[in-house]
């Protein structure tokens, strides 16, 4: 992902900032400029809760090049408290202990290794509470 692509998303990635539709209330992460539910373009920024529950998860053993140093790792769908369903990883936790419905908390982490000549990507991962 290019430096500019990363820069465009940094607020969402670093601080869990997404969007809320002012017309119908639907939440988006990362930020969105258009509501696919009601067709409104009146969306405003909202910082979502750093807590959530595990909606689904998987321990990945076969990974892409930029993730090989952290393999195996656990990817997950997290339902944020009063927020949307988002995609991330669960770290600092024994994979065997992860279950659907468990509470998790956001932590700030390096996401993947950098491609030569590109910047390091940081963002939010989660750990079991």
């Amino acid at each position, binding site marked *: 992902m290019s430096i500019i692509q990363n820069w465009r998303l940094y607020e969402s990635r670093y601080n869990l900032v997404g969007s809320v539709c002012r017309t119908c209330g639907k939440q988006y992460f990362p930020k969105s400029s258009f509501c696919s539910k009601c067709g409104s373009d009146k969306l405003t920024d909202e910082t979502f809760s750093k807590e959530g529950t595990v909606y689904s998860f998987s321990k990945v053993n*076969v990974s892409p090049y930029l993730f090989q140093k952290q393999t195996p790792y656990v990817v997950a769908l997290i339902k944020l408290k009063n927020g949307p369903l988002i995609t991330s990883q669960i770290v600092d936790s024994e994979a065997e202990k992860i279950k659907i419905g468990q509470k998790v908390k956001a932590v700030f982490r390096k996401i993947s290794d950098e491609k030569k000549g590109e910047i390091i990507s940081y963002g939010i*991962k989660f750990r079991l509470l």
Partner: protein
Amino acid sequence: MYIIGTGLTKFGEHFEKSLLDLALEASVEAVKESGLELSQIDAVVVGNMLSDTLSSQGHLGALLSSSLGLNVEAFRVEAACASGGVAFKKGVDMLKAGQYQNILVVGAEKMCDHKSSEVVAGLTNAAHAEKESFYGLTFPSVYALMTQRYFYQYSIASKELAAVAVKNHYHGARNNKAHFPKEITIDTVLKSSVVAEPLTLFDCSPISDGAAAVVLSLEAKPEAVKVLSSEIATDSVALQDRQKITSIKATKIAAKKAYKNADVTIKDIDMLEVHDCFTIAEVIALEDLGFYKEGQAGQAAKLGHTYYNAKLPVNTSGGLKSAGHPVGATGVKQVIEIVHQLQGRAEGRQVNKAQLGLTHNVGGSGATAVVSILSSNI
């Protein structure tokens, strides 16, 4: 409109052949079988996902049509693993529009030339780059997330999924075009290495080379197969934006339209080729297509209901699992399997008295679905 010719390469590792070689082989075979001259082909539609990522080659429409000696309208269609199915549907649409008489639809993919890490990265482009791939989600892990949630909501486990792979390999062992034409056991699946929990290597379709082609025509000939309907629907690319991850809404919408436009119900359908890129995908497909209630298709293969000689034959070609999954070719290969079954050409896996068949091709984790219904009654 009618399918009047089919051409299919063997699926597998074709180190001696290029993407174009494979596409030409399938195309020439299909045109020959149709009884037409190449000069009677009015347009060429190519389904392919990865040629620019892996082979540094775009512009496949002109590449193929010119190599066939044609100067007709030609273009490529990309919809991840549904590229072939979408290409087929576009061919049908173009005939419906009335501008053309005969159209060649070709699905082709070349994957085995490349390192598996490059292929994995290319396939991951089907997922949402900013929402999924960025966080290390791979294609198998996206389906693993669906599987884990499915296991949580319904009472099946890895053993039931393994039975899907066993059944598809049983069929593939009877298909000489299959990439891995050999039977396996439940243990083969359960004891193979874990790719993304809970999916093992044998829950996943392989990386394959191959091409498939059909000639579509407004005019029937003896042995032609009629296209009753072909429909596409779409949904969010990222799992996180779906209403549910234990079913695929795009399949439900495409199927509903396909049944309506073909004027058939599921009771009329004799056999299915569904998109089993992972074993869980076949289970979910049988539910979304309406053959089982949600959460209840998990036992189908284990109970033997979906074998070629049972009540609902599913993936008699061996599916993506055993026949192989050269992504762009898959959707067209599914059509060819149904055509051959309806023509009584399926040899050791021939379904008894099949008259109506359905194909189901999915892109990504379900953001695109194509459902087509074919009939032997012309």
